[in-house]
């Protein structure tokens, strides 16, 4: 059943990367329980605009949980309280009338705030540029069925490939590590025969880049897996570590 909620928002407001930022308390009135979280923010923003104030800046695009644009820490959890859910898929029926909701951007040394809840996540692109692909030019591919891949392997690669690059794993990690993001890509490509030739080189380069960009390391807190909206498993971090070690030994042997 649809109900109406009256809520109090404590929203992070920050004019730009150099601004210190602060929490602003805003009412959110007559919110339907059928609204998504972002639709609730839309309603608040319409009110702010009409009142002559600046609306809250937040990233969003597909609003169906696949583009990875949206994401805020809601009451201390990346993407809010529902498991396996992006912020755009979180519906207001999961909140109660009278609730106070605290909304902040990802807190990470590597992701600078652009404005309010909007962050610069381009460091993820830089990590992928370091090797998160298979080096194949257009036109050079053999027939798609030339190399059979067992269903289990294909499914395992797909599990890893489901990552949407939102950065929630970094926000959830006390070390600000991007190991789940990096592990998912390395794992997807290391599982597939097409990705094997570059597996060692890829793991070493992506991890070096991750370190250089200011992300922390993994100390098995496992919060990333808990808060990941696509429920990517930390076993992919284990595979990353294996691929990295194999690569490092091979590099050492060949001098």
């Amino acid at each position, binding site marked *: 059943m649809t109900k109406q909620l009256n809520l109090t928002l404590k929203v992070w407001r920050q004019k730009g990367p150099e601004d210190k930022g602060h929490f602003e308390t805003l009412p959110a009135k007559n919110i339907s329980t059928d609204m998504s979280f972002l639709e609730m923010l839309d309603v608040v923003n319409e009110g702010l605009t009409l009142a002559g104030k600046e609306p809250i800046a937040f990233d969003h*695009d597909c609003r169906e949980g696949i583009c990875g644009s949206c994401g805020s820490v809601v009451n201390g959890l990346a993407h809010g309280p529902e498991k396996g859910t992006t912020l755009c898929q979180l519906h207001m029926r999961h909140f109660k009338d009278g609730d106070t909701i605290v909304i902040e951007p990802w807190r990470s040394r590597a992701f600078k705030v652009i404005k309010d809840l909007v962050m610069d996540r381009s460091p993820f692109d830089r990590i992928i540029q370091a090797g998160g692909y298979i080096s194949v030019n257009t*036109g050079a591919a053999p027939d798609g*069925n030339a190399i059979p891949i067992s269903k289990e392997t294909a499914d395992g690669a797909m599990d890893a490939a489901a990552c949407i690059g939102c950065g929630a794993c970094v926000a959830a990690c006390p070390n600000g590590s991007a190991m789940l993001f990096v592990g998912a890509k390395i794992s997807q490509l290391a599982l597939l025969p097409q990705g094997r030739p570059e597996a060692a080189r890829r793991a070493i380069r992506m991890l070096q880049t991750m370190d250089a960009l200011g992300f922390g390391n993994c100390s098995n807190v496992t919060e990333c897996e808990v808060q990941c909206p696509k429920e990517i498993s930390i076993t992919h971090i284990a595979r990353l570590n294996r691929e990295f070690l194999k690569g490092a030994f091979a590099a050492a042997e060949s001098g």
Partner: protein
Amino acid sequence: MLLDGKVPGGTLPEKWDRHRFELKLVNPANKRKFEVIVVGTGLAGASAAASLAELGYSVKAFCIQDTPRRAHSIAAQGGINAAKNYQNDGDSVQRLFYDTIKGGDFRAREANVYRLAQLSTNIIDQCVAQGVPFARDYGGLLANRSFGGAQVSRTFYARGQTGQQLLLGAYGALMRQVAAGRVTLFPRREMLDLVIVNDRARGIVVRNLIDGAIEPHAAHAVVLATGGYSNAFYLSTNAMACNVSAAFRAYKRGAFFANPCYTQIHPTCIPVHGDYQSKLTLMSESLRNDGRVWVPKNPGDHRPPSQIPEADRDYYLERMYPSFGNLVPRDVASRRAKEQCDQGKGVGETGFAVYLDFADAIKRDGKSVIAQKYGNLFQMYEKITAENPYETPMRIYPAVHYTMGGLWVDYNLMSNLAGLFVLGEANFSDHGANRLGASALMQGLADGYFIIPYTVGGYFAASGLETIDTGHPAFTDSIRSAKDRVQRLLGVRGRRTVDDFHRQLGHILWNHCGMSRNDAGMKKARSMVQELRAEYWENVLVPGSAGDFNQSLERAGRVADFLEFAELMIIDALARRESCGGHFNEAFQTEEHEARRDDENFSHVSAWEYAGDDAEPLDHKEPLSFEYVQLAQRSYK
């Protein structure tokens, strides 16, 4: 003026080979001297930018999102067609070609569609090599499923996330070229103008969405891969940032806009609920493989679905179309759903929904098989509606999903403006009046990976392009007009928000230029759009400033373009005196309420030329001649 599609000679199967041989080549050592701007990084844009860079061209890639990986291609769920015939069920290039031409209601260019079918097989190979984890059978070979408008199983898929996986493949290829220094990336940029020098497209002007700076960029060619215009309707399945602005700016600089009235209304979306709603969510067409569509037989039957016995249900698609059943093309399925609801048989709170029921499939195959195929879609449905589709049928209703119209292009994918190439959903080329499921991904990647790398080269080799830079007066002009427009939007300081206007525009288009159209409604809609546009420039309220991260200002510019573009859609819809595919004018239908084409008078593309803000656009025609298929009334019975 009659437009020439520049279709090469030879028989249909030979044309593309022959054309590739005829296109001149650029000396490999010279390629890096040619700069190409690619706007948009969806499937078409990312694959084009990566492939052009691999050849050695210097590429600048622009996107509106914070990273190229977020382009809206990512949301495509169901799959990608290819004439591999791995299933041995009678598929072939010829059959994919015919299905696509027929699915488009015979309003596409034959030679383009044939080439698309030919290239479809290369796409799958390319994507597998990139590490796209397509679904596989236990033997380790690629799996297929069926999609609407086809009787063979030729759709390749990666769970319900095919678009995501294909885009990440293309994005990886693009990132590899960024690392190699051959692509420079410009994220969070919005194109505000196309720059023409000596009758050729030579650059663009963009707004940096972070600090509001207006930036000029020059090149030897401009490639637009900026998607479709479904968001003219406000509510659609498109992502929030999807817009017509880049294409419309090009139109205002002289590029012809073709068939803007061809809009696709997708039959299986989660129904509208509430005024605050910001977008609609698609439930993949692949669900119609196993889901059965039905409504209560009797109008006003409000019993819950579980209490409506078989005898009181009408599986209307299976009844009306025994050979295609639930897998009829999208335009047909959508119109029939509307018809049922208009007869009072709609279900749910609003009465604007029909059931999509999986009970039989779960009984037949077991819940785990169904969960494997559609698990993420069922989960998405439950998140939005709080109903479990394993236990109760989904409620679905049609929603705007894709636009077949777009900038006019010839066989080389070049618009009437030399040096301006248009790819993917942004062009008009391959889907005619209705796109079949799993064909958009195919077209985007065919354009980007396999067509544009050749035709851009052919253009460079054949034209002597002078060196220009952004100091040229044409750039100065564009920068000034872009800045003026931003100031004008901010200066109105009215009383209504941008979204408020956008929502109203959406209502006008949905009611009068949507699934079912008539002359009186469209004429009324045209004047309503004109009035709304006039009010917009006097009463819109855009907060904030120009030199800042300002999302309201971004939307304001896009909605201003939609308000002009909507009128062009209506003009085109009024001019097409027939029904075909996604354009259904009630005056032109068969006794069985199917679209009735007029091949004698309307077997052509309508390409509109901008003639000034206060003048009617000019209608140019490209006649469509069919040498290899026989035009027929589409039948899916």
